[in-house]
């Protein structure tokens, strides 16, 4: 299964690249255009995809793909996305604890009281380190203090 899905994924990437790059001129060997390298790479990727699918078809490989629990990806990546969306308008003071709390949903071991205290401590620590010690221009709390 690994090889079948992996092969399909490679072919999909190749197709996306070809469709996206269809407007780019290939040029000639004498003067390579912007499309030549991406298209060649896409072709090779597609080829590897085909070979992977063939190797699955020939039945050499019977490796499963394991479990695909959604909990981790949804909450971890979701937490990062929420951070990206909130850090500008709400600042680190809100986006930081929000990220920690959302991410905590990803683990079954989370203890809620602990994580709430931890999220505030982490936020204060990161504010002190990044904003004040390293003076990186990350918003603190625009809705409260204006920056």
């Amino acid at each position: 299964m690994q090889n079948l899905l992996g092969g399909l994924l490679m072919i999909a990437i190749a197709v996306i690249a070809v469709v996206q790059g269809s407007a780019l001129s290939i040029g000639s060997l004498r003067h390579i255009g912007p499309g030549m390298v991406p298209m060649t790479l896409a072709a090779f990727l597609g080829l590897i995809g085909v070979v992977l699918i063939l190797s699955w078809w020939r039945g050499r490989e019977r490796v499963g793909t394991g479990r695909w629990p959604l909990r981790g990806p949804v909450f971890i990546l979701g937490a990062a996305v929420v951070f990206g969306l909130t850090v500008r308008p709400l600042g680190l003071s809100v986006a930081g604890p929000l990220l920690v709390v959302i991410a905590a949903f990803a683990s079954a071991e989370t203890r809620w009281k602990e994580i709430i205290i931890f999220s505030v401590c982490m936020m204060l620590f990161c504010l002190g380190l990044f904003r004040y010690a390293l003076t990186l221009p990350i918003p603190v709390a625009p809705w409260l203090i204006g920056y």
Partner: protein
Amino acid sequence: MDALIANLSHGFSVAVSLSNLGLCFVGVVIGTLVGILPGVGPIATIAMLLPLTFNFDPTGALIMLAGIYYGAQYGGSTTAILINIPGEATSVVTVLDGHQMARQGRAGVALGTAALVSFFAGTVSTIVVAALGVPLTKLALLFGPAEYFSLMVMGLSFAVVLAQGSLLKAAAMILLGILLSTIGTDIETGEERLTFGFAELADGIDFVVLAMGFFGFAEILHNLENPETRDVVKGKIGRLLPNLQDIRMSIAPMLRGTGLGALLGILPGNGAVLGPFASYATEKKLSRTPERFGKGAIEGVAGPEAANNAGAQTAFIPLLTLGIPPNAVMALMVGAMTIHGIIPGPQVMTKSPDLFWGMIASMWIGNAFLLIINLPLIGIWVRLLHVPYRLMFSAILLFCSIGIYSINNDPSDVLLTALFGLIGYVFIKLGFEPAPALLGFVLGKLMEEKLRQALIISRGDFMTFVDNPVSAVLLLISVVVIILAVVPAIRKTKEEALSMS
């Protein structure tokens, strides 16, 4: 020889300035600290700590980053000995005898030996890096586009061969990495390529975004699903310094390990990963009592640890002289250098000698710091091993997110990283190792540029890569290593060697 001493002393004069010394120290300390935390490898460590260096001048920033790198490497060995988990691929071998020593109540001696041989190996390889710096840079300046292109092809071929798992999948990841590097504005025509119409992608994908997505985020996802069984050594660490007999048994393995590690580390395409394996195999073969190996033989710690550290350091040679990173960690150093406005390559030595020699000198200083801080502070490190992962992963995620945002003060970078985290996670699930993609990504732009230049010079004749003797030899080597890797017998040995991890 005189020039070498002059250059090194210039480097030391840069590196011992109070601020650089301080940065090196801070780098080594936090590198060790984060490297020891379970579930954080060197790539994630460096990516996560990159924003700490944004405010410093390039020399200071790189000295600090190099310190973080040694610290993270050394932290990997500590976790290998104390909790039976290799922090990274190169300390896999240390687990075998190091953890056994720890279980026999000799954890302190194992750690002490690891620190001492690492310091020795670090000292030797600092000199090797300094000695090879000038001649290799001169050689690199003679390279035309065709030679450069073939050199990178060779590096990537090695990377494919040395990657874990399927060759085909490693090759796919390298090609994908190069493909991702073509996203953004074309260098010659200014046309936007593969940007899906997003203005954010016009400047291309930021290297750190890709690295954090594939390593920081995807690693968290992987660790949450596969909780480590931590086998923390209970009881006392014991005496740290090896006794006379330990020293007598360690010296020869240390010398051989240093030699092997330094030599393999110079190879393009992550030769450094082979050093500890080669050293362990050598010591076991040479030993009069090979049956002791795997049961706490001190030679099995001294040799591989020396090789590990020597290789970690000589891996800087291809990066500093040729501008070609040999592995994913060095690729990250390229990303860091680029953020600070330095394009790695042969011109660094001539254009910014302070940075070049200062960094080399700081390698030795960093190793000395490691020795000083690690032996007395081992008690603190042990306590860190008990930090529960349920708290750590959200802290890592927060650090990564703040770091990514801070590169360009652009929230869309965080979203893009989450996307790459998802892609990286799917790849790992399907048996694709993401490290080669990072290498392909870093080399991609340069490769395309050199390919175009070479073909313009040769008027579209592909034979230019074969007519040029240097280029032809490099390509021949690439073909040979790939063919060798496909030969079933050799493939099996490689799998056995790497499957220890």
